């Protein structure tokens, strides 16, 4: 006979427990009072595929906000960051964004990373007049009807692919093969790169799109090598590029390989033997490393050479701080209407939020020059120009080639 031992969660106890938790949920509203901290939202991947970049972006934003707080905060208020994890999943991200918008009532959400997450969250933002800053690269994002409530500091595919192809052609490669992960950027990148390569006298001898999360890409590698390329462009993410680099090495290919630096991270270099990664060229959007903003970001975060995501996150926190100060109010609409007034134009060039805040307080016009680039935006929220940094991997370490 089975002992029927139900520590009964009776209906009453369930209702009581639910009520207690619901009261807990309501607490932040009670704590809100005049002069309370100004809350800014961060929605970035802390778990899932973006779990490597999200925390670093978060750290960079925190560093800027700490500085702003130390200098007296914004519009007379201390700044608090409300952080939610988007789980690199659009469905979870939408729920998290609702919380930020409706419960925390943030004027801005900073930090979406995956393109699908940004596309899912963006409608919530513009409908609720909340500003959104992102690194997602898919061209379609800035084409959404966002009414100005969105900026992205990441160069779009068109800009990136064109610049990459210019570099590849200038490096002397004549026959280029491109392997892309199945992602929104795959086709536009292939198309644009092929176009520019042709203009510059090189040729795209072939391209393929592969599935993510495979344990081997041997057949894809064979397909690529059949075309006898003198450069293979790996347009994917770290997990798959790791496997492809290994498979290319095993297949005996030692020619130049070209990849985004987010796909050849320190982790990847640690995971693969140095001979497998030797000669890989990595590219990333870059600030002019001579830019004072870059040096300041490095000092602030304690990272010798902040990467593209860390610098972009630095720039969001700075742009948002300056936008709020310029608008003299912390609203999404205020940010939308003022972000270009502090990021471009003929004002005094400033390289950090604190520096800009000081000038704004004196009633001066400013032009923020960021750590990730000049931070000048088109009407639809794309950056106008961006520099790229090229590294070559030697002995498992990236060695600086050039910035162009």
């Amino acid at each position, binding site marked *: 006979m089975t002992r029927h031992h*139900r*520590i009964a*969660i009776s209906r009453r106890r*369930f209702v009581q427990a*639910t009520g207690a*938790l619901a009261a*807990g*949920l*309501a*607490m*932040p*509203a009670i704590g809100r009072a005049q002069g309370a901290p100004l809350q800014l939202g961060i929605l970035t991947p*802390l*778990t899932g595929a973006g*779990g490597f970049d*999200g*925390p670093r972006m*978060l750290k960079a934003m925190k560093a800027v906000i700490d500085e702003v707080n130390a200098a007296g905060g914004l519009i007379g208020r201390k700044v608090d960051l409300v*952080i*939610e*994890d988007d*789980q690199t*999943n*659009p*469905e979870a991200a*939408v*729920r*998290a964004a*609702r*919380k930020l*918008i*409706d*419960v925390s009532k943030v004027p801005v959400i900073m930090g979406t990373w*995956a*393109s*699908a*997450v940004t*596309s*899912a969250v*963006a*409608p*919530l933002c513009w*409908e*609720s007049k909340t500003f959104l800053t992102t690194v997602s690269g*898919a061209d*379609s994002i800035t084409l*959404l*009807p966002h009414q100005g409530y969105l900026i992205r500091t990441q160069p779009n595919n068109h800009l990136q692919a064109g610049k990459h192809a210019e570099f590849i052609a200038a490096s002397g490669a004549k026959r280029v093969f491109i392997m892309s992960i*199945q*992602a*929104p950027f795959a*086709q536009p990148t292939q198309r644009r790169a092929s176009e520019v390569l042709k203009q510059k006298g090189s040729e795209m001898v072939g391209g393929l*799109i592969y*599935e993510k999360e495979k344990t081997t890409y041997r057949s894809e590698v064979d397909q690529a090598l059949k075309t006898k390329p003198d450069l293979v462009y790996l347009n994917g993410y770290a997990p798959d590029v790791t496997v492809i680099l290994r498979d290319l090495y095993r297949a005996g290919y030692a020619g130049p390989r070209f990849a985004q630096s987010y796909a050849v991270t320190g982790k990847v270099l640690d995971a693969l033997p140095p001979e497998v990664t030797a000669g890989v060229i990595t590219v990333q959007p870059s600030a002019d490393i001579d830019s004072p903003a870059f040096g300041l970001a490095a000092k602030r975060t304690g990272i010798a050479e902040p990467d593209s995501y860390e610098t972009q996150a630095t720039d969001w926190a700075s742009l948002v701080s300056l936008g709020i100060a310029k608008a003299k109010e912390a609203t999404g609409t205020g940010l939308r209407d003022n972000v270009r007034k502090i990021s471009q134009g003929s004002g005094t060039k400033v390289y950090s939020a604190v520096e800009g805040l000081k000038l704004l307080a004196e009633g001066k016009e400013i032009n923020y020059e960021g750590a990730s680039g000049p931070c000048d935006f088109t009407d639809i929220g794309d950056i106008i120009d961006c520099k790229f940094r090229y590294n070559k991997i030697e002995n498992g370490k990236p060695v600086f080639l050039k910035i162009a």
Partner: protein
Amino acid sequence: MENYVIAMAVSAGIYALMALGLNVIWGLAGMINLGAVGFFAIGAYITALATLKLGFPIWAGTILGTIGAALVGGGVALLTGRLRGDYLAIVTLGLAETIRVISSNMIWLTNGTDGLSGIPGPLRGSLSPTQFNLLYLGVVAAIVAVAYLLSERLAQAPFGRVLRAIRDDEQVAAVAGKHVMGFKVRAFAIGAAALGLAGALYAHYTSYIAPDIFVPLLTLYIKLALLAGGLGNNRGALIGAFVVVFFLESTRFVIPYVPGLSAVQGAALREFLIALLLLVLLRYNPAGLVPERLPRIAPS
């Protein structure tokens, strides 16, 4: 705050509809369907494409999505009629993944991993976000209520009894003269219809769908909702869906009060906490919060 609670209630309502659908397939007929999210995706894509590309009204797209999911569901049941238990689970899991991979690659139709944005919602744009959420909550609540009543009717009707008989012993049901395959196909189609309808409701609610949304995690949430609520019981399906959304969301508010955690640790702890809550719930309620009550057979 209100808007957030309303939006989460809509999410829970959509989860509840999925749980009701899965309950017919899994709870009543005993067919383990790990591909629930696949039918959800079919409903979402059909209505998104019908309204965006063919200019159908929202209600018509939703009905088409529901029918589409039901047809695929029936087809899957026909193909897999002889598979049971784990084998059926593997096939349905594979089906859902196949649908996701197709939606990622059939770029001309589905726009690939970019997803489809701008899917119309009823009166979206002419209402404030809160009004829209409220309206949608009304629609979802009404649909869930109807689905619940229909499911209850179905569970108590002779049809439901046959499904339970098939679940408990297929051979006995066959010996009793029941056309097992026919019942399985119909049960699968009915359940898939509810899943597809939920997908359509989701698409019109959030205005954006992409393959990344239709990952197995969502199937697991719905499975957990059923297990937490009580498998085989429609009331359990409803309660379970709300419990899962409540766990997912309430943990968000608890974590900031845990001292000394970085944001990353907090995010990990939150997922751990959700798992723990479900484990505790099932430890003390192995048959779910509202266990299935089988109708007594009156002594003759």
